[in-house]
Every structure is written in C-alpha cells, then in structure tokens.
C-alpha cells in the first residue's frame, strides 16, 4: 500500500474516536476561566476608573502649563512710604512699577512729587498702573487751596504708540512734561497744578500710600521686591509614611494590608522628582471557602500535593504574608496653590524576604494544616499609582496625604495570587 493510502486510512480510522475526557476536567477549565474573567473585570475597572482620569489629569495639567501665558508681576506695596506732610511741605517718593518683560531691563522709575497745603492730609492715593497704558483721574472736591502734584509715568516698553498716548494724556490734564531720564531710557515727568482739591480722591483701584517721613529731600531708588513661586534646584527630601490598603483577590475576597516606608527623594526639575526607599508590607486575610472557584483560583498548589488532595474539604484559609520592599518612584509635582502641591506618583515596590504562613481549616473537622514558605529573592513586587497632596507645616517640613491604586503584575506568596487594591497613606517630608 502506498504511503498516501496508508495515511488516508489512518486519518479515517483516527477520526472515529468517541472517547470523552473525565467529567472533572471541565470543572478545572471552568475554574481557570473564572479567574481569567475576574482578572479581565479588574483590568477594565482599572483602565476606566483610574488610568483614564490619571491620564486626563496629567495631560490636562501639562497642556495648561505649556500654554500658560506669562503673568505680570505686580508689586502690591509701595517700597518707599511718604510721610505725613504739613501744609506747604514737599515730599518726594519714587516707586517702581515693573512688568515681567522689564525686570531684567531694570524698568523705569516713577517720580511722584506732591506739595500739600498746610492742612493735614494723612492719606493720599497715587495711581499705579502695571502696563504702559496711562490713565489717571482726579476728582476735585472741596476747598484745599493750591495743591501741586507731580506725577511721573512709567513706560514699560516705550513704543511710538505709548509715547503719543502719554503726550495726549499730558495735554488733556494740563500737565507739563519733563524728561527725568534713568536707566538710559527716557521717562516723562509732568506737573499739574490742582486747585481746590481736598481731599484727593482717586479711583478705588489706585494704590494707597501711607505718609511716614517728613521732607524726604533725597531720591531713593526703591528696590524691587518681587515674590515668585519657585523651587530650590537640587532639592533633596527625606520622608516617612504609613499606609493602609484593601486588596482584592481574584474571587472578590478582600484582604487588608499595611505599608510603612522611609524614602529619600531628589528634585531634578521644577515638576519632577525621583525617590528610593525602604519599606515593609504586611498582608493578612481570612477567607471562608464556599466554592470550587476559590480553590481553583489558587495557582501553584502543586507545590503541596497533600493540600491538593484535600482541596475539596477546605472550609477556611487564613494567610499572613509579609515582606520588605524597595520602593522606586517617579513623581510629578503640580502646584495647586502657593502652599498646597499635588503629586502624581508611579511607584514600584520591589519585594524581598517574603515570608508567608497559610493555615487551612477543613469542613470535616480534620486538624488544621499549616504551610510556611520563605523566599529571599528580589521580586517584582507591586506597582502603585498615587495621587498625593502636601502642605507646608514649618521650615522645610511638609505633611503629606495620598490615595493610591495597587496592582501586582506577578504573583506573590505561596498561593501565587495576583491582587489589586486601593489605599491611603499619610506622612511627613522634609525638603532641604
């Protein structure tokens, strides 16, 4: 018989097979499928409830900061104060108004000179504007006598447009223009004689100047004080925190875990820092076993053949798993207010020195069975995505609170389980 006929005969005969596998085979396959279904559910929940909002938060923040326009820094207080002046006296003060663009150029100075009649005027308001547009309004009220006011305008970036605007303002208000000259740039000084002016009331947005020194005869250049929110470069930090988590196993049972960590961090960018530390993790659970799914979802039970034979009799499983961790993290810092900072963290806690005790109780009343396993190798451990907030308490010391999502990508412990969970932590951090 040729080989092709032989093979055809074999194929036909082998296709007649009618033997069925054992009935418990489907139970084992179904158990493994239940575990996979649960894992898929967890994965979908994680993507929708955690990863997507985190991505939107990070993406939105990045977009906001990239597109944020530079703001004008405004000096909120006058640097030099004008003293109370008796009538007829003269006081001079210089104030600087600088916008962001001109900080490096030094800006220009405004000279304000005021002559007051003898009757006391304790408060005087002078216009301060933060851009190069010029407007000032003076309201005449009451009878004061002659009051001479000298106002110097600041021109941030003198352009032909701003200069012509200034000139028209000068003309409109009957000011006399005079160049002061400073920083190599020209400035305009104008004087105006005001009659019957008491009190000098200006618009509410005008800045109030408190007069404190009599007869300042020398012009003093005010120093610019600009407060800017910034971080110290090459900033180290050391922190300690404690966390409590609830972990979900594949069959929806919950375990409790605690973490404690000591961390050192290094801030290498305005928004980014990295950290490394030492920690300890403790996971405990006590499950009542009420279906074959529970048993099937315990993975590598072939390590303990004696358990495998007893598995259908198991009523309760208690586990205590503990290990040391080496957390490695990358942090993204987002200032929320001047003091409150939000931090997004991706953290990997490498696990080592795992020690697990498992205690099985049986329905038949057989004595409990204990398995203990230790594992000293370095393991992948678990991944944490954390949203934290920190607030300054005193010099360099910050209080932290965080909410996190824990995921394992590799099984841990005797029972070779994946588990995911949520948790919270609090701690202290010192920046130096």
């Amino acid at each position, binding site marked *: *018989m040729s*080989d092709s*006929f*032989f*093979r055809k*005969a*074999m*194929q036909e*005969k*082998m*296709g*007649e*097979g*009618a*033997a*069925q*596998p*054992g009935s418990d*085979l*489907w139970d*084992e*396959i*179904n158990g*493994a*499928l239940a575990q*996979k*279904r649960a894992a*898929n559910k967890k994965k979908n929940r994680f993507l929708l409830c955690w990863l997507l909002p985190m991505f939107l938060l990070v993406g939105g923040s990045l977009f906001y900061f990239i597109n944020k326009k530079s703001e004008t820094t405004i000096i909120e207080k006058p640097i030099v104060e004008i003293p109370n002046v008796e009538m007829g006296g003269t006081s001079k003060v210089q104030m600087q108004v600088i916008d962001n663009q001109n900080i490096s150029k030094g800006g220009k100075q405004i000279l304000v000179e005021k002559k007051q009649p003898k009757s006391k005027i304790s408060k005087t308001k002078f216009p301060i504007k933060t851009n190069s547009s010029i407007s000032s309004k003076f309201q005449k009220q009451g009878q004061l006598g002659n009051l001479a006011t000298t106002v110097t305008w600041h021109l941030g970036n003198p352009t032909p447009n701003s200069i012509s605007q200034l000139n028209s303002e000068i003309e409109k208000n009957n000011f006399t223009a005079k160049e002061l000259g400073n920083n190599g740039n020209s400035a305009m000084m104008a004087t105006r004689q005001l009659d019957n002016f008491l009190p000098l009331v200006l618009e509410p947005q005008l800045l109030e100047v408190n007069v404190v020194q009599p007869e300042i005869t020398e012009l003093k250049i005010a120093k610019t004080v600009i407060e800017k929110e910034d971080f110290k470069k090459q900033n180290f930090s050391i922190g300690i925190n404690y966390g409590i988590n609830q972990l979900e196993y594949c069959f929806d049972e919950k375990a409790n875990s605690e973490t404690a960590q000591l961390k050192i961090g290094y801030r290498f960018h305005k928004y980014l820092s990295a950290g490394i530390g030492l920690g300890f993790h403790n996971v405990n659970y006590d499950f009542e076993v009420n279906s074959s799914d529970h048993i099937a979802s315990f993975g590598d039970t072939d390590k303990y053949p004696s358990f495998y034979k007893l598995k259908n009799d198991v009523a309760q499983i208690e586990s205590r798993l503990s290990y040391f961790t080496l957390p490695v993290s990358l942090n993204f810092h987002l200032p929320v207010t001047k003091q409150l900072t939000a931090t997004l963290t991706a953290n990997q806690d490498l696990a080592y020195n795992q020690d697990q005790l498992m205690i099985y109780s049986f329905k038949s009343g057989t004595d409990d069975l204990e398995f203990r396993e230790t594992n000293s190798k370095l393991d992948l451990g678990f991944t944490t995505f954390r949203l934290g907030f920190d607030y300054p308490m005193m010099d360099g010391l910050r209080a932290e609170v965080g909410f996190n999502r824990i995921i394992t990508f590799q099984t841990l412990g005797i029972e070779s389980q994946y588990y995911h969970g949520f948790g919270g932590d609090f701690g202290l951090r010192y920046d130096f």
Partner: protein
Amino acid sequence: MNKASFQKLKELEPDACKTLYDKYKVLLYSICRRYASNEGDAQDMMQEGFMAIFNSIGKYKFQGSFEGYIKRVFINTVLNFVRKNYQQLYKTESWQMVNHDSEINAAAISNLNYEELLSHVQNLPEGYRIVFNMYAIDGYKHREIATVLRIKESTSRSQYTRAKQILQKNILESEKININE
C-alpha cells in the same frame, strides 16, 4: 458560529464556553490521546489546549473554518506541551530499507477498531509517536515538523519511517494472534 455567539465566547460567558467545550471535546481529546504518553498527560493537554483556545478566541478573523482554527490552536498547544515535557528522543538514525514483505494492507487497518489502532499508536516510542501523529494523521509536512520540533528534516523522515515499520509490525502480529484465536 454566528457573531452573537462569537461575542459571548470572547467575553468568556460561562454558557458559551461550555457549549464550545461540549461540541469539540471528543475531537480534541482524541488528539490528546494520540500524543500523550499517559492519561494524566492527555488531561493536562486538554486543559492547556482549551485555555489556549479561549485566550485566543479574539484573534479569529472569520477567515477559514472555525473548527480548523481551534484545531490549529489546540495542536500547537499540544506540541508545546510535548516539547516542554517530553525528553527528546530524536536521534539521527540511519535510514533502513522497509521490508516490503511485511507491509500492511488497507484491510488490516480497517479491521482494527479505533481503540485497538490507538493502542498501537500509543505504544510507539515517544519521539516516533509524535512525528507519526504529525505526519500521518495531522497532515504536517516534514519541513514543518522539523521547524516545530526543532529537528532536522531528515530526522523527521527517518523517525516516521521507523514508526511506520514498528506500527506495521505490531498490527501484523496482532492480526496473526487474532487469526490463531
């Protein structure tokens, strides 16, 4: 396989999975029994094979028959099991001339029932049995067998020839025993 049932399978719905299992368990179990050394291995192959089918359901693109697709996935899983668990017995042997006088005829094969023929196949030495199953029953070419099992093509040919000789010999001997009885 309609799209609604397929979608339920993709989502691993218990009823849909059980229906698939019931429909194909006999066919796929017969494959396991041919490749496995013992009943325990056959059960393990079944479990791994079906898990591989359920895990790769989503990759089926409705090109070709669904039965052909799951059979391919299943056999690949079985072969992975064989490669992982069975010791390689593929020694390069010198090719021996077939004794044409002892060739079996088609009637001898058809006289055997399935279990008897399966028993003869299961009694083949491990390496011969794998190559024989892949070439004679599952339709692989020697070049494909060589790639899958990571052996030479000449080794695959010689393994098959030896397997066929042993099988023929065993079938003829059992025929003689039956005649004497």
